[in-house]
């Protein structure tokens, strides 16, 4: 963010202070806001959600010094308004932008050997990460994901009943375990050199 000369160097601190007076709370809100804005761009079908999120923070960074003393209400709504403007601007462009990162790091077309190799790596990473889960969590993931469509709904209700929790609680529990597993696999694949 500080790379743009128009963005004051202390804008990041000011954004944090605007989000919450407690710096730790503000830092968490910042991380979450970034993820949420990226999601909003993704749901709207924008080509480069991460790049647009950076742009939102850049734009707010340029104005935060003036905004903070006078703005009333939840600052996250201001970020959303900026995001909304960006969505409109993005759609006016006929050509979808290719991010600088893409230009600098052009991916080579995958060959079927690459795809096979990646499947093997994925399998190895999955196995290695599953071993790090407790048996209880592994069982929960099997129970939660083993069925599809209507059978899945029935299974999850049954599983929630067995565990003595509500279905929404079970969903959160399964989601968290899967998120951890997903992160572990992503890191493992990165180490195997399968990520860009």
């Amino acid at each position, binding site marked *: 963010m500080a790379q743009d000369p128009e963005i004051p160097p202390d804008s990041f601190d000011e954004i944090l202070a605007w989000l919450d007076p407690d710096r730790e709370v503000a830092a968490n809100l910042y991380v979450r806001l970034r993820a949420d804005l990226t999601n909003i761009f993704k*749901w709207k079908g924008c080509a480069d959600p991460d790049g647009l999120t950076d742009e939102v923070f850049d734009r707010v960074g340029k104005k935060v010094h003036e905004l903070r003393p006078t703005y009333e209400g939840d600052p996250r709504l201001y970020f959303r308004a900026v995001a*909304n403007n960006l969505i409109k601007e993005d759609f006016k462009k006929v050509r979808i932008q290719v991010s600088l990162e893409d230009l600098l790091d052009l991916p080579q077309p995958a060959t079927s050997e690459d795809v096979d190799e990646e499947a093997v790596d994925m399998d190895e990473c999955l196995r290695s990460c599953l071993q790090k889960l407790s048996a209880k969590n592994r069982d929960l993931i099997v129970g*939660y*994901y*083993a069925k599809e469509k209507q059978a899945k709904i029935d299974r999850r209700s049954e599983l929630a009943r067995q565990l003595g929790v509500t279905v929404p609680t079970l969903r959160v529990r399964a989601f968290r375990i899967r998120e951890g597993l997903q992160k572990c696999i992503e890191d493992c694949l990165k180490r195997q050199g399968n990520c860009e």
Partner: protein
Amino acid sequence: MKEEFMTGAFLREFLLGELADEDRERIESLYLTDDETRERVLDAEQDLIEDYLEGSLSREETERFVLRYARTFEQRQKLRITKSIKDWAVTEEGKAQTAAAPASIVRGPQSRLRLRPVLVVPIAAMIVIAIMLAIVWRNSQLKERQHLKVEQELAQLNSPASMQEIPPQMTSLELKPVTVRGIAPQTQFNPDAEFRIVELHLPWIQTERYPTYQAKISKLGDDVSFTISNLQAQDSGEYMVRIRLRVELLSKGNYQICLRGISADGVVSSCEEYKFVVNN
């Protein structure tokens, strides 16, 4: 107020970009500021991803989903990881059931079964059927996985960044839309070991121009088709969409491509059809 409109179906429309701006903005504001709404939206997103992986989305929903969730390498990898977790869970469940079935025959009402040999034949038949079903299921899983791999490969080969590169061993083929080809013979393609990739040039003749295009490639007489999303047109004298295919994917036969434009708000155009023949 939140409860009134935020049904699962409504949130799904939101996630697929189908809502009017007013409703979308209302949900976005709540999503950012209200924990409960955020949780519900993310829940709905999980359901949507699972439905996609299970093949439960309609064609239109799938197109919209791919535009949002399978656009970048990172997104596609997240989907692959989720799919591998689901596949593993299904396999584990299958193993547990297979292990439990003979165990119940031996450990459960074993004495009764041993005393009644008349049951052995039906039970054996059931086991054989179960094994056959498992083989059929496994084959379909493998086919599905293979299909997903090919689509991922095509998405990467046709990503905007890749399309700026000119790979070695590439040849090109000019196609004309069926509507303007008239009685002219179909374009023929003769695969040559020299070429690894063929780039098809598809002139876009509809007056409306779109930020992205989607191509569905199918072989006549074959159930399988492949879809490539997020294609972009180029205007170098002629307004056209280019798509790249690995030559080894093309076996002898008649091929059809349905090209559609996707507007910024997700509206899909009518299909522009192209055909070509692969020899040998």
